[in-house]
């Protein structure tokens, strides 16, 4: 399977481990970054993974940040993405069966690597179970985020990165 993966700088090492794990299983991985430990911003990578999935460049996406909330929410803000954020195998399985989830979010500072690998295994291997109810729910979800600028490219974030460079975002 072709899988897009993304992370922020808090969990780059964990993402790299996941890339090795997926490739060892024979999957083709599109690594959307980040690639090092330099401070960056999760929506950049969540959007990139989402774009790969909704344009069918990748069949599924995996996104990881500290709690998973930031990067998974950025992926969900792209129309057509259905991304649960999970800490157990069961939620991953049910999101595939009931909601045909196409991206999975995990918190790298919340969930350990062994559990994470099993979550991803089940996410990749569980088929969608189509029912009238599930089709209707998915249609409702996909109709949302109609104002999404998820396919407008990395450039949509430039205005904020310029403000960042000029020191507008300080602790």
């Amino acid at each position, binding site marked *: 399977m072709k899988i897009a993966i993304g992370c922020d700088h808090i969990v780059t090492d964990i993402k790299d481990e996941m890339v090795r794990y997926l490739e060892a299983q024979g999957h083709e991985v599109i690594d959307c970054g980040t690639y090092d430990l330099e*401070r960056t*911003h*999760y*929506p*950049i990578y969540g*959007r990139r993974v989402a774009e790969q999935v909704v344009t069918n460049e990748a069949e599924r996406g995996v996104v990881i940040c*500290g*709690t*998973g*909330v*930031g990067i*998974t*929410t*950025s992926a*969900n*803000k*792209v*129309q057509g993405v*259905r*991304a*649960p*954020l*999970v*800490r*157990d195998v*069961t*939620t991953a399985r*049910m*999101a595939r069966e*009931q*909601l045909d*989830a196409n991206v999975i*979010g995990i*918190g790298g500072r*919340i969930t350990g690597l062994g559990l994470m690998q099993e979550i991803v295994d089940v996410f990749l291997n569980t088929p969608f179970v189509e029912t009238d109810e599930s089709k209707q*729910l998915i249609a*409702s*979800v996909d109709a*949302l*985020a109609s*104002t*999404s*600028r*998820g396919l407008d490219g990395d450039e*949509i*974030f430039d205005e*904020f*990165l310029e*403000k*960042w460079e000029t020191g507008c*975002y*300080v*602790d």
Partner: protein
Amino acid sequence: MKVALSADKASEGRKQVIIDHVKGLGHEIVDYSGDDIVAAIVRVTNAVRDEEVARGILLDSFGSLSYMVAAKQSGIVCAQVSDEHSAKMTRDHNNSTIIAMGTEVIGDTLAREIVSAFLGAEYSGGRHQIRVDMLNKLA
């Protein structure tokens, strides 16, 4: 503070646990649940965006549907959580105003503790705001 709530039919028992707990913490809780779960979630996100309420709590069997629907709303940061640390950190770092929890995954006391952690934590702003601005730009 004022807290909005939505729950699917299967989470009726958990909903009562959360209502009692939120009231016990000294907050007001408004129940937006209804037959159409997606519509109920959107009512909660609208109430949060319009600042009719300060926070939202979404309950369904696994939390994923509530999370996806809320996360896709313009200007909303929602967190799907099943642990207390995420509930706290997502306030601090993401300025999440809504959490989604899975009734079939979490027990009563853990659910209460997640709510306490979420309602008790504040956003720290600063460098984190660029990421929230980016989320809001996406949708």
